[in-house]
């Protein structure tokens, strides 16, 4: 089998994983299970990034998203002891929501497929992007957004502390 086929196989496996896990996140009846399924979806996305030669992004995804954000979510859930178990967490607008989501999906897919028809990702050309080039990109072309994001993070940090403080 050619490398191309292998990539296709890997893509389909992880696409199924992401979709399945995503669907379970929004339908499962247990909040902790939902968070754990989100881990599955995120890991699948990380695998996608590896497939797309964005290794650095993939590991940042694992480190920050899975290692920190989801842990924080689980931590918060267990700490507050808010209802976790098999209670009904959905409201009564499920059909409407499904309809809405389906509409969004259909419309965007049609537009996207139409717009990017025939465009290929050429894996042969890509020798993988080195981490160094990402660093260079961040600190040259994108240094302003980087600073803005830093300030945003700082603000969020302060904000979270202020909100959650007991006084």
């Amino acid at each position, binding site marked *: 089998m050619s490398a191309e086929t292998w990539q296709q196989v890997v*893509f389909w496996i992880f696409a199924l994983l992401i979709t399945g896990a995503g669907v379970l996140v929004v339908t499962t009846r247990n909040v902790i299970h939902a968070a754990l399924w989100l881990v599955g979806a995120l890991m699948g996305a990380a695998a996608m990034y590896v497939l797309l030669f964005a290794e650095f992004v993939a590991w940042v995804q694992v480190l920050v998203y899975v290692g920190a954000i989801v842990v924080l979510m689980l931590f918060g859930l267990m700490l507050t002891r808010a209802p976790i178990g098999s209670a009904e967490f959905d409201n009564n607008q499920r059909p409407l929501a499904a309809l809405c989501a389906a509409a969004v999906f259909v419309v965007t897919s049609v537009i996207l497929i139409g717009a990017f028809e025939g465009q290929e990702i050429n894996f042969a050309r890509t020798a993988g992007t080195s981490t160094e080039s990402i660093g260079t990109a961040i600190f040259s072309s994108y240094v302003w957004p980087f600073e803005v994001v830093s300030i945003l993070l700082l603000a969020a940090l302060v904000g979270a502390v202020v909100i959650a403080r007991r006084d």
Partner: protein
Amino acid sequence: MPVSFFLVLSALLFSIGIYGVLARQHAVLVLLSIELMLNAVNINLVAFSAMLQEAGLGGQVFALFVIAVAAAEVGVGLAIVILIYRNRQSVDLDELDLMKW
């Protein structure tokens, strides 16, 4: 590999996220759904970045920024949820119709 594979996957994930945001009552579950949507965006960005290699690494860099923003969002979001829970003993978004407490 056609780029539209990734785009459709991303659109699908985004729609799942939309469904979750609309249909869920539990605040944390809504946050989780938002994470799904952000990830859909990331897949898009990275796929475009791979497609347009000559144009630089903007896609990947922005994916990193999105992750950073997601971290900030979860931090503040979770703090709010905990605060609401502490004051109202509930994280049901449909019950939070008061603008003050």
